[in-house]
């Protein structure tokens, strides 16, 4: 495999990157870790005229946390660093878990969480948890900066809400309530090191054993990571008993819309949506109760 010819830019500030993106217009593509982009280019699926690398922009790799504003993951923060960050491990264990379970060591050392989102694969490991936690993305463009809820970011397989002049500069995740819990569950054909055939992210807020708030997102069972609205309704304001959780699993199975492809049959995916939803709800509940 040989890469097609392209121009390469390594701007050192976001403004400079912005300007390049405007100047180069349609043929330009942003490059973070390159673990998706370069594979596509290698296979001739993408032929950008120029690449604008983001990794030389100082500060863009930063991960910051404070209890009031929550977590900020810079656009070039590596999956490996997100997986191992002490604040993320303490306050966002499911975010760390999703990053840790994305692909393999080599990819985690190159790839970024932001890139995983921008690539907009329905199976993106990092999407469901961040969606469940009400994450937003910080976007800078020619007209200035805007914040967009992550659940409005995905537009279809490989398609996101960024305009051609825009750069996703950071992911913002609110500080979790003390009585909430989050879980990420996924499954694939190989035991470990694999792309997810189904993944589920869940956040619940508990008042005693009653679920007062819930967000459930399913990955790889629809064109974009999908919110399981009917499933949420089965658990909201309910005691999270085994019985309710069982019902939630069935609801998730019913509302998921998987396809059969090389990675799994639709039938198996549906069954796994039920299992993983149950497991995610159980873990999220237990984390909320123990927090």
């Amino acid at each position, binding site marked *: 495999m040989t890469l097609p010819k392209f121009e390469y830019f390594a701007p050192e500030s976001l403004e400079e990157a912005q300007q390049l993106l405007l100047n180069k217009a349609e043929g330009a593509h942003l490059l973070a870790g390159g673990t998706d982009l370069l594979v596509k280019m290698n296979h001739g699926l993408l032929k950008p005229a120029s690449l604008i690398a983001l990794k030389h922009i100082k500060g863009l790799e930063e991960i910051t946390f404070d209890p009031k504003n929550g977590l900020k993951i810079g656009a070039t923060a590596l999956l490996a660093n997100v997986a191992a960050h002490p604040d993320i491990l303490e306050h966002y264990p499911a975010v760390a878990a999703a990053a840790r379970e994305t692909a393999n060591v080599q990819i985690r050392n190159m790839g970024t969480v932001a890139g995983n989102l921008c690539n907009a694969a329905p199976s993106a490991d990092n999407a469901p948890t961040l969606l469940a936690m009400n994450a937003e993305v910080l976007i800078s463009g020619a007209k200035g900066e805007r914040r967009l809820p992550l659940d409005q970011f995905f537009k279809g397989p490989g398609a996101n809400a960024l305009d051609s002049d825009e750069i996703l500069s950071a992911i913002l995740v609110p500080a979790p309530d003390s009585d909430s819990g989050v879980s990420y569950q996924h499954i694939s054909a*190989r035991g470990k*090191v694999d792309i997810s055939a189904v993944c589920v992210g869940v956040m619940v807020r508990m008042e005693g054993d009653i679920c007062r708030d819930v967000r459930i997102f399913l990955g790889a069972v629809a064109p974009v990571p999908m919110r399981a609205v009917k499933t949420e309704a089965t658990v909201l304001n309910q005691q999270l008993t085994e019985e309710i959780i069982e019902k939630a699993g069935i609801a998730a199975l019913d509302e998921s819309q998987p396809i059969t492809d090389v990675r799994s049959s639709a039938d198996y995916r549906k*069954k796994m949506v039920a299992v993983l939803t149950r497991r995610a709800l159980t873990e999220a509940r237990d984390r909320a109760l123990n927090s």
Partner: protein
Amino acid sequence: MEQFSIVGKDVPRNDAVAKARGSAIYTDDMKLPGMLFGQILRSPVAHARIIKIDTGKAEALPGVKSVITGKDIPKVKYGNWRLFADTQDEYALAVDKVRFIGDEVAAVAAIDRETVREALELIEVEYEELEGVYDIDASIKEGAPVIHDYCPGNISVNRKIEYGDIEKGFAESDYVREDTFKVQAVSHAYLEPCSALAQVDLDGRITLWTSTQVPYIVQCLLASTLEMRENDIRVVKPFVGGGFGGKMELRTWEFCAAFMAKQTGRPVKFTLSREEEFLTGRRRHPMTLHSKVGFKKDGSLMAKDLRIILDGGAYNAMGPTATFLCGNFGAMLYRYPNYRFHGRHAYTNKPPASAMRGFGAPQSLYASEIQMNLAAEALGIDPVDLRLKNAQVSGDEIPDVATISSCGFIESIEAVVKMSDWKRLRKELKPGQGIGIGCYSFITGGVFNWFNTQYPFSAAEVRAFSDGTVHLLTMASDIGQGCDTVMKQILAEELGLQMEDIRITSADTATTPQADLGAWGSRVTLMAGNAVIDAAKKIKEKLFGALSAFLNANVIYEMECKNGMVQPKNRSKKAVPFGDVVAMVQKAKRGEPLIAHGYYTPRDKGLVTPAFGFGAQIALVDVDRETGKVDVKQMWTAHDCGTVINPKGVEGQLAGSIQMGLGYALSEQFVMQDGKTLNTNFLDYKMPTAMDMPPSAVTHIDTYEPEGPMGAKECGEGLASPTAPAISDAVYHATGYRCKDLPITPEKILKSMENDT
């Protein structure tokens, strides 16, 4: 066990550091001045007549130096079964027809890869599509589309074995059962995709560097397809990143590199992409196996009737050998007093299946082993006890096929049962956990000469020097399994030298002695090892003669080579350094160098192999009963490979076999639609990774194979067989799902558990 000083030790491999650092030179690393890059144009359709190929635009593209199609090359079919020319069914480039998606239609050589790719897109091929057949049933159906005109029923090989009285055997059985098993294709997935580089010398002779297991076979078949003489072709094997049976034939790119180098006068290199390897590469034969077995109430085996159909894909490749061998493996492990086998090899419009680690054994033994477990359950006998009752032992004879000269099978079963605490775990496991057993036997090289070589099967040349060093030359091919190290160990042991005293040149058909059939069939250690010993003995004879004359003693001593010296046995006071004795031999013959040749070709060893390896393996699994996912927690192995020459090498073979067995059992398969392979990368071809490897414990059973070099026999392929049946049996123990249709996917487990409740 015999006492050895170098054999049996963990001698480090001489290539390990270079490979770990990335400094080892593989074929694709090589560049020659003026070198052109080549690539193959492959058929996008599974079955079609070629109406027209227009290469005009491609040829006109600047930078393109050669475009060839089937019209431009000698019409010579090839295949490894030269003794039976009617099995040779492949041209280097398609003539008139294409038979699978990926079939080779044309080749381009140009100054760089971009130009090659562009040129490929400019070649216009007009196809008339034909109906395709994609599985065994469709292939052998009455009126099925004919894939090769010479073979109207699509069955290209028929093989029968029969001994005893099968009908009587079943009539005298108390318990008879019949089962049908299906096993899937899997990929060799060697880390180094195929690559070949050809150069023409001043006299028009060709040198080909290629990633191959069989330099000699490539040399011969390249000569015939180019209509040149064998000695005009030199094949050199650089470092090779694994083969597993996938690199043991002449392949199109080897031919094209040589042909185009000759045509253009410039070196030409072809390297396949991983996607090409997965889309079009050789693979393990999918098979349908019907097996009928009969037992007495006490568990004694009475008869077995085995019928196998191999899904061969579009060409024979190594299918004839696989057809032959899976029938022999069906008769192994247990004493079947009455046995009948009928194997058929069917063409389909898919990439050709061929040799792959185990060569018919993983398929055949999967059926044997699962059926033993089914029978054990029905007869109310522990599967281990049923095996022990029927196990083959040293001296057993398979009529007209082989005599088993050494056999540590019973010892292997007993050892692995003890290691795993089988009897207790079989009863005491938690829900979702299971433990299961699988066994194997395998050949140590083949005695058959289908390739029709006029040379010994293995050869060695040893040159001894007066500085105390020796130079070993052998055509044996180290493809990553470590035979360069093993050959040096054997020679060092035999000559009483150290590893660093030995220089080795291997696998170059112009400089190493004729011949060696290659690295396949687990033949190298035994056959090339015996040739090395033969050469070393001839060297010793000369050294001993010279030393005897020098010592001029009044009694005759037995002599030995030990610790770098030559001496009368156990009399180190009379020892003379090895190099000094070499000098004596040379001086006695006016300086003529001390060189000896050794050879090995098996004699009177039946129809199959000079020696069999044996072993047993137990797997412990944990099955997630909600997702159906199988987690292999532990593997225990006890096996008999005769004398262990390099323990680390043997353990490496075991680890690699378990990794391949895990994939075969649980996750690997080609997802195909109408002959097209859909999963063409490691993301979607689910080969287990290092992270999936279970802990593993091993016991080497101490046996001595009289035909083997220093008592050694195979360990490279046999171990590829037991893992799938052991895991399968453990999954049954855990869930009640008995898999007769590999792989054991979570979906199949869940379906079976739903049906049970």
